[in-house]
Structures are given as structure tokens and as C-alpha cells.
């Protein structure tokens, strides 16, 4: 089976990549971080992502405690 070629575009800086790994490894010109860094999402959301993340962690831990 031949792997499908797919273009990945960074929605922040607009750069195009030939693989998702290349995209994930790039330092975004708009944020100064790679998409793997939490600071990347914080930069794109005006700091809201950290709050979203904290809420997600609270929900997950609460569910875990109930199990």
C-alpha cells in the first residue's frame, strides 16, 4: 500500500510541510514555539489554552477518582 501524500499547513504561520512530523518539529514564526509546546497554543489563544488544559486535567482526575 502506498502512503498518501498529504500537505500539512501550520494554521498560525502558514508554512507548508510534507509530513506531520515536519510540521510538529518546526518552530512557528508566529508563536516562536513548536506545535508540541503548550506555549504554542497559549500564544494562539491569548493564554486561554492553559486554562482549557487545567480544566481537562481536573475532569480527567475527577473521573479517575470515581473509578
Amino acid at each position, binding site marked *: 500500500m502506498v502512503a498518501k501524500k*498529504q500537505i500539512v499547513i501550520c494554521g498560525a504561520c502558514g508554512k507548508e510541510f510534507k509530513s*506531520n512530523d515536519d510540521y*510538529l518539529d518546526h518552530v512557528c514564526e508566529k508563536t516562536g514555539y513548536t506545535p508540541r509546546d503548550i506555549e504554542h497554543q497559549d500564544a494562539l489563544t491569548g493564554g486561554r489554552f492553559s486554562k*482549557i488544559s487545567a480544566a*481537562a486535567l481536573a475532569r480527567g482526575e475527577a473521573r479517575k477518582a470515581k473509578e
Partner: protein
Amino acid sequence: MAATVQINEFNTVGETKTASITNSNMGSTDAVNLNAVTYPIAADDNSYEKWQKIEVTAMGGSSKIDNLKTWRTTALAAEATHLTNARIADYGGAEEFATPIATASTIADQTMPSSEPASANLGIGGALAGALTDAGSSDYLVHQIQTTASAVAGASCTMNYQYDETA
């Protein structure tokens, strides 16, 4: 540390992926971040389907991401419906990408919830009980706006994408 999560959209026959989208504007073209004024949905027509995924780009020391939920808040304009493949029961499994269409979607055939679902309605690995323990993506979320001939213009809604994270 915590996981880094983003929403991606996929467009055109090439399944071009735009990572970390900033809106989910629905309209009469198959494009990411479209301008709904430039590409309005005519009465009795449908929007192009949106094909989106939730992607974990790094676990950040956490062990699990699961319980994916998606819903819309704020009412649509009259005579418009928002349909999706997301559902909390009888989940259809992971959809294979198909070029987004503006005819009535056969994949998005459930009403998009207008409040937080009681349980996961978007799967991982084809199952609502699925989880990510490393970087990866959800199943495709497919959604579409459909209108009748009596539809009136304009609605600005909020799409909600939610996940749970375990340390």
C-alpha cells in the same frame, strides 16, 4: 506539564490538513477559516461538510486523553439544522476521509448537540471509549449546516471541543 491539544481541519481532494484552526466558519466553499460573508449558504442549500480532528501533539507527561465531546452553543437561524456524525450511542466508527461535499451529507446525519453531551460523542480509534496515550488524533468529526427554502440569514455560533486528561 500538560498535553498540548489542537483542532485541525482537512480540505479538498488532497485531504490538505490545516493545523490549529481558529474558527469553524461554515459556508459555500470547501476551505478552512472561510469568510461566511464571501461564501454564504443560500436558502435551501447546504454548507460544505467540515472534516476536523482533535490532535494531541504532545502528552506533556500526562498518561491519557479521552472522553471527547463536541457540541454547538448559540441557536442557529430559523430553518437551519446542524448535522454531525458525532453521537453518544450507535457510533459509526472512524470515518475515512472523503472530499467535502455540499450535497446532503450521508455521514453527518445526527443533530449536533446544543449542550454538552452526557458522554463522549467523538471516538478515538473508532470507538467512543477510545483513548490516546501518545500523540495522535481523534476520529474525524464531520459536520454540515443544512437549510430549507425558508431559511433566514445569519447565525454566529460557538463550536465546543472538549477532552479529559489524566496525569
